[in-house]
C-alpha cells in the first residue's frame, strides 16, 4: 500500500479501521452458505450454528445484513477488560498485551454489533478507562526518548499513531541536536588541538607572541 507523505505524519482513525478490517474474527453464521473464495484465502463454509472465522470486514458486512452474530473476542469481555484495567493500573506495570488493532476492532464492534456484546455500556466505559491509562503511560514513556531509540512494548497501532507526529519530530530533532552536539564536540576538540598547537608554536618560537 502506498503511503502518502501525509500518512507518514500519522493515520486517521478511518484509515486505521480500514487496516484493522483484515484481522480475523469468529462469527456464528445465521444463513447457510458455501465456501467463499477470497484473494486472501477461502472462508466458510457457513453452517449455522457452527462458528467460523472470517475477516472483520466480511463479518461486519454479514452483520449489517443480519446474516451472522459476531462472537466477541476474548479480550473484549467485560471481566477480561476489568482484569486488564487492574493490571494496567498497577504502578510500574508494563503495557498489557492486546491485539495490535484492539481499539479499532472494539470501535467497529461497538458500532455495528453492539447487540452481540454482553454489557456493551460497561465495555465502553472500561475501554475508555483502559485507553486513558495507556495514554498517560505512553506520554510518560515518551520522556525516555533519546536520540537512539524509544522502547515501549505492546503498544497498539492507534497508540503508536497517536504519538507518531510528536515522536517523529522530536526524534528527528533529537538526532539533529545530537549531530550538532557531536559536531561541536569535534570542533571543540579540533580547536583545542589548534590552541595546543599554537601553544607549542609559542614555545617553539619563544615568547614573541604574548596573549
Amino acid at each position, binding site marked *: 500500500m502506498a503511503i502518502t507523505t501525509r500518512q507518514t505524519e500519522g493515520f486517521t482513525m478511518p484509515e486505521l479501521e480500514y487496516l484493522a478490517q483484515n484481522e480475523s474474527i469468529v462469527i*456464528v453464521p*445465521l*444463513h*447457510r452458505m458455501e465456501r467463499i473464495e477470497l484473494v486472501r484465502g477461502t472462508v466458510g463454509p457457513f453452517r*449455522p*450454528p*457452527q462458528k467460523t472465522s472470517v475477516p472483520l470486514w466480511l463479518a461486519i458486512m454479514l452483520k449489517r445484513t*443480519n*446474516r451472522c452474530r459476531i462472537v466477541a473476542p476474548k479480550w473484549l469481555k467485560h471481566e477480561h477488560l476489568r482484569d486488564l484495567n487492574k493490571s494496567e493500573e498497577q504502578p510500574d506495570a508494563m503495557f498489557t498485551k492486546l491485539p495490535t488493532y484492539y481499539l479499532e476492532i472494539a470501535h467497529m464492534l461497538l458500532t455495528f454489533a453492539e447487540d452481540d456484546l454482553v454489557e456493551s455500556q460497561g465495555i465502553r466505559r472500561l475501554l475508555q478507562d483502559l485507553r486513558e491509562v495507556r495514554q498517560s503511560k505512553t506520554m510518560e514513556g515518551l520522556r525516555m526518548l533519546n536520540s537512539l531509540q524509544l522502547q515501549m512494548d505492546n503498544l497498539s497501532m492507534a497508540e503508536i499513531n497517536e504519538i507518531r507526529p510528536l515522536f517523529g519530530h522530536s526524534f528527528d530533532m533529537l538526532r539533529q541536536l545530537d549531530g550538532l552536539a557531536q559536531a561541536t564536540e569535534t570542533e571543540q576538540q579540533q580547536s583545542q588541538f589548534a590552541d595546543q598547537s599554537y601553544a607549542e608554536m609559542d614555545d617553539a618560537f619563544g615568547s614573541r607572541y604574548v596573549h
Partner: protein
Amino acid sequence: MTQSITSPRYAHAEGYTALAFGKNGQFVCTGGSDSLIRVFYAPKSERDQEAITLEQHSDNILSLAVSRGKVISGDEEGMVFSFDLGQSSGSDSDGLSVEPSGTVLRSTLPARDISISSNERQVAIATDDESIRIISLLDMAVLHTLVGHRGSVNSVAYSPDSKYLASSGCDGTVRIWDMREGDPACVQIMPKIAYVCEPGNSMDQYKVRWSPDGRTLAIPCTNHSIKLIERNNWDASALLTGGHTSTICHLAWSPSGKYLASAGLDCQAVVWDVAARKVVLSYANANALCQVEWNPQGNMLAFSDCTGAMYIWDDVIPIEQGHAAPFERALADAVTLSKDKLMSDLFDDTAPADRASEDGMDEDEDEGDFLDAGDPTADAMDDFVVDDDGAGYAERQAPRWTAVAASEVQCFQPGSTPWLGNRRYLAFTMVGSVVSIAQDESHNTIEIEFYDKSVHRDFHFSDSFRFSMAALSDSGCLFATTSKELANDQSLRGAAAEADEVSVVSYKAFASWSANSDWTFKLPPKENPRCIATSSQGAAVVTSLGNLRLFTCGGAQRHIETLPNRVVTCVARDDLLLIVLEAPGTIRSSGGMKQLEYEYVLMNMDGQSRLATGSCPVTPTSEIVWVGFSEEGHPAVCDSKGLLRVLHKYWAPTHASWVPVLDSRKLSRDRGKREGFWPVAISARQFIVATCQGKSKYPPFPKPILDELDVDLPLLSTDTQVGQQEAKYLASRLFVEQQRGEAERIGSEYPGGASALARDELGQDKLLLRLIQLACKSDKTQRALDLAMLIALEKSFDAAVKIAVFLKQSSLAERLVRLREIKFASHSEDEISDEETSEAA
C-alpha cells in the same frame, strides 16, 4: 371434651409474638414486641421454672426458628441473630443454655420468617424486600438471593428433605424453588393462591408450611380456608374450610403429618384432621392469635396471641377416642429418614427389606426404639404407652409404594430444561431452539428460533395446551403435553403420568406445499406421552402405556407397537429412530445411589425394521442425560459424567458397538475451569455444547453462543504426539466408515461423491503417514509396518516407502515394497474392498 390449656403466660408486651418449639420438645421459645426472647421449659413438671431471657434484639421480634443446635431469630429492624443451644441431656433440664452466637444477617427491612434446612447448614430468611436470602450457617455468608417475588416475602419453608423451598409473598403468590444444587431455580409459581395481605402489618402476614413427610404444602388462602398442595404436580389436593371465620395467619403440622393446627385473626386455634379434611378441635381465645406450633415429641400445642401471651395446650388429640397420636413420626420417606439422626440407625439396614411384610409387631418394635432414641419427655412417654396402632399404618404404607413407583423410570426429552424463571427450553438442537414462556394460568407462549435463518423464519405462538415436550426437526416441530406442566422435571414425571387428564400431541410443519399440514391428536385418557421425537420423515410418540406410535409428517398413523414400559427417551433423524430404555438390571439403593443400565433400539422411522438393539453402556453410577444423532448420522449418547459415545457400525447388523469419542469432563478439567457443558449436538469432529456459567447446569437465556469441543477419543498416552495422532486417525476413520456405511445402507453414493471419498481417505492416510514417520524416527519399524497396512490409497503407500527410505529404515522399506505388491496387485479394480480386507487382517 375438656381442653387442658394452661392459663396465659404473659411472656411479652402487647404485640406480635413469635413462637417455636425445640427439636426435642423440651422447651418453647417466644419472641415478642419487647424485643426479648424467652425460653420456657415445655414439660408439665418443669413448666414453672423460670424462663431464660435473651436481650440481644432491639426491636420487635417477628420470627423464630429452632434447629437441633441453634435458635435463630429475626426482628423488625432486619437483624437476624443466632443463638447456640447448650448441650443438655434430656433429663437434666438445668443443662439448657442459650448463648448468642452471632449475627446471621443485617437486613434493612423486617425479617418475617426463617427456615432452617434439614442439614442445618443453611437458613432461608424472608424479609420485607422482594428477595429471599439463603445464608450458610457455617460462615454466615449469603449463598443465594432468590429474586422473583413482587412485593414483600412473608414466609419461607424448606421442605423436610430440603429439596424445595416454598415461599409466599404479600401479593398472595407462592413460589417453589428447587434447592437441590447449584443456583436455586424457581420451579413453580402459584399466583394469587394465598390471600393478599397488607405489607408491613405483622398481624396480617401468613405462613406456608410443609407437611413432615414433605409431600404436601399447606397454604392459607382466601375465604379463611387452607389449601393443601401436592408436591409432585403442585396442584391443590384438598381444601380445608369451615374452621375459621377470619384470616388464617399461621399453620403447624403435627409431627406425624396427620393433623394440622391453624391460628387465625378470629381468635381461634383449630386442629384439622388432614386425611378426613375436617376440624377435630378448636379453641376460641379472647385475642387474635399470632403463631401456633406443635411439640415435635408430644401431644402438645403452643400458641401465642397479640397480647404477648403464650398458651400451652396439653393432650390436644384425644387418643382414647381412636385418634392417632400426633407426634409419631411419619415413616413415609426413606430419604427424609436417612437424614434423621434418630431414625437412621434403626431403619437403614432392616427397613427396606421388611417393608412389604410390615405388620403390627414390627411397628411396635420400631416405636420402642424410636422412643429410646428420641429422648422424649416424661409426658410424651405416657402418651406413647396408650397409643394403639390401628388407624395410621395402613395409610402410611400406601404413599411409600407410590414413591418407589414414581421414581421408577425417569424419562426426559433431550435438550429440554426445567423452568428457569418463567422460561424453559423444550428443545435445543442444531436446527434451533424451542422455548416455552409462562404467561398466565391459561396459556404459555412458545417461541421457535432457528439457527439457519435462511431456511425458516423464527416464529412464536400462544400455547393454550401448555406443552411440556417438544421435538424439533428441520421440517417441523412436534409438541406434546402431559397436561401437568411440570412433568418434564425428571423427578416429577412419574407422578404426572398418573394424572387422568387427556394429553395432546400436536405437529407444526414449518413449510409445506399443502395448506393444512399441521395436525393434533388427543390421546386416550390415562395414556400420556412420555417422550417424543420427530424427523423429516415422520414423528414418534412413546406413551405411558408403553405404546410407540409412529406418524407420518402429514399426520397419518402408520405404525403402533408396544415397548417395555421403561423407555427413557427417544430421538429421530431422517429415517432412523433411536429409543433408549432402562434395562431391567437397574439397581437403586435406598440411599438414592443408582446403578443404571440402559438398552437401545435403533429402528426405522416407519417401524418396519430394526437395525440394531442391545445394551447401551454408561459410565458406572451415571445416567444418560442426552441422546441424539450426529450431523452425519451416528447415534450418540452422553452420560452425566460427560462421556460421549457413538454407536458405530449401526448399519451392519450385529456389528454395532458404542465407541467413546469424548470425555468432556476431562476436557474441562484440563482447561482448569469448572464449566458445565450442556450437550446440544455432535458432528464428526466436534461436540457442540452450550457452556453453562457458574454452577448452573442449564444454558442461560437468551440463547448462548454454542461452543465446539473437538472430538478426542480417550486413547492411551494422548499427552504424546503419537497418541494424539492416533486419536485423530481413529476419529477420522470413524467418520469415513460411517459415511460409507450410511451411504451403503440408504443405497446412495458417498456424500459429496467419489472425490469427497478420495479426499477423506487421503486425509486419513496423511495422518497415518505422519504416524509412520514418527514410528520410523523412533525405530519402531514393526509399528510402522502395522500402520502401513492400514493405508487406503496406493499413492500414500508410495509416500510411506519414501519416508522409510528417507529415514534410512531399509529393512522396513523392503517389506513395504513387498507388501505393496500384494496389497495393490489388483489395485485399480476396487480400492474399497481391498482396504476392508486389510483392515480385517
